[in-house]
């Protein structure tokens, strides 16, 4: 497909929200500080697990098409998918756990209870909330958004399109939540997006580092080429033991590369196929210039 002129576009900004209207699409990010205690109390009514220490509950990324299809990314929906079954806390333990537990059992055997077990790594398979506003564009019930499912797709993201040098019309990034796992690593759910004349890409990344234990990256990419009639979503989940990734870190004493999600992502990709790889799409109708 040859490069065509960019659809008409306009950048906009309104307080914490900024974005771009391009062709039939409107893409916007909202960035605010972390939730205050009153907001945390409200979120806690929905989410039963202890909340991450940096919860950007008012942050949001919205990709909306004129036909009514939209993909929204927000922290609360992502946290709703974190495992909170009684076994969930046992899936991963911090590096010091074995020794620590031995000592604790010996000296304080009566303390053996975890009050609210949950997957404290905040691992989530969230890949955005997809919905369709009801009725035709002219209909009255436009405001009612209904959750829809994307369909499995043969076609993936056009990587060549993304590699081709193109001006960036709009770029933004934001964090949905972050937790330092009590200084045992990090769990970060963040978003980046870029809009070019020929296409746009959203990358939501869940990055988990449990020091000396595990690295995990769950990536969700949402991609559209202007002129096509589908919105594509690809989800990959990769993970590897900390030690095997660390071997390729430059200097043994400098472990800061391990905190760099981009660097870790490149290493994980080299280390083998993803644990999960899913391609999906939804028809949005052909976008016009």
């Amino acid at each position, binding site marked *: 497909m040859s490069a065509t002129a960019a659809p008409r576009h306009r*950048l906009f900004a309104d307080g914490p929200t900024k974005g771009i209207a391009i062709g039939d699409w409107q893409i916007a990010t909202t960035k*605010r*500080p*972390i*939730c*205050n*205690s009153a907001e*945390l109390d409200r979120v806690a009514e929905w989410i039963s697990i202890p909340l991450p*220490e*940096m919860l950007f509950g008012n942050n949001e990324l919205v990709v909306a098409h004129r036909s009514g299809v939209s993909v929204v990314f927000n922290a609360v929906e992502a946290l709703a998918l974190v495992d909170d079954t009684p076994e969930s*806390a046992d899936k991963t*333990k*911090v590096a*010091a*756990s074995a*020794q*620590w*537990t031995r*000592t*604790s059992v010996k*000296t*304080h055997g009566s*303390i*053996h*209870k*975890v*009050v*609210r*077990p*949950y997957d*404290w790594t905040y691992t989530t398979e969230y890949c955005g909330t997809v919905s369709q506003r009801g009725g035709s564009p002219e209909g009255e019930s436009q405001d009612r958004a209904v959750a829809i499912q994307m369909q499995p797709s043969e076609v993936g*993201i056009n*990587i060549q399109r*993304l*590699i081709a*040098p*193109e*001006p*960036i*019309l*709009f*770029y933004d990034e934001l*964090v949905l939540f972050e937790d330092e796992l*009590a*200084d*045992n690593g990090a769990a970060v759910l*963040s978003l*980046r997006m*870029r809009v070019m004349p020929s296409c746009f890409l959203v*990358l939501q990344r869940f990055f988990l580092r449990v*020091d000396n234990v595990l690295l995990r990256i769950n990536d969700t990419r949402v991609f559209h080429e202007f002129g096509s009639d589908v919105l594509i979503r690809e989800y990959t989940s990769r993970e590897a033991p900390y030690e095997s990734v660390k071997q390729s870190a430059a200097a043994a*004493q*400098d*472990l*800061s590369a391990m*905190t*760099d*999600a*981009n*660097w870790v992502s490149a290493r994980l990709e080299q280390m083998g196929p993803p644990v999960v790889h899913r391609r999906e799409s939804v028809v949005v109708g052909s976008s016009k210039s």
Partner: protein
Amino acid sequence: MAWDLDALIEKAQRRELLPENTIRELCNKAKELLLSEDNVRHVQAPVTVVGDVHGQFYDVLEIFRIGGQCPDTNYVFLGDYVDRGYYSVETITLLLCLKVRYPDRVTLVRGNHECRAVTQVYGFYNECCEKYKGGLVWSYFTDVFDYLVLAVVISDTILCIHGGLSPSLHTLDQIRVIDRFREIPHDGPMADLVWSDPQQVDGDEISGFTLSPRGAGYIFGEDVTRHFLEINGFGHICRAHQLCMEGYQILFDDMLSTVWSAPNYCYRVGNMASLLEIGPGLERYFNVFAACPDDQRTSDPQGGEVSFKALVQELLMEEDERKSKDFQKSYDSYSQNVALDVQDTGIVTNFRTSKTLSQYFI
């Protein structure tokens, strides 16, 4: 070189790096001083308690502007001076200078980041190597960390610690007898003091000490807090260690409070910070403040830092036609030297994973 501490303090306040030899000497003097301090240090109100600052140097200067300069105000710092912020070296340099100059007006408690293992992961080690070419300065500083005190008691009434209580520690005397001159161990009472967290549990859920779901560390509840206060005749526990949007948090029916002193943590969280000002009659006042304004942050003398926002605005969102044609070229040349904000810190720095934007994320 003559040892002029006031001149060093002035330099440190200007965020100038002190020579490596001076750092070594400063650390030796600090160790000598700290060696004579008890694990538990007693201070009298009025006093101002500062929580985590994490290398946010300009916010530390703001703390002194708000809370009063040394030695006019008596300060207790609750640890976590380094890691995460850009200026851990400058922050700990300034605090150690002040400690050595005014030993009776500055108290430095050890936090869980004042530790070799933790600083190797969270930035301080790396920063020392970058600013001083080699790891020696890091070893001088981390040697001092082994000497920092574990707790402070204000006017026999308020206990100050970095993290929280330990099931191994029922009395103050048990804190006094810990052998603290060492790296923070993985477990035991010394680890608990700098790592543990309080948790408010509702209804019938059990209280007391419970296990962290992470598999290491204790969580303590309201009843053990009350018990500890009663046994030791204290009225309140003040601790740091946990971020809160409002800059402070009061728990357990006002028996315990968290003070957090790093505003806009990591330069992007948007939270408030506070100082806990304890008056002569032990009244507690949280003096809440926001991040120091940008115009009071001078640019990095070493260069190489550009606000990512400014870069984006300049290069990516340029609507001027001529400039947008030049975009890719200017971007590519720029990216030879600096990388994008791959760590999401808001600042573009020289970073090993330099990439052009088209490769930036796919």
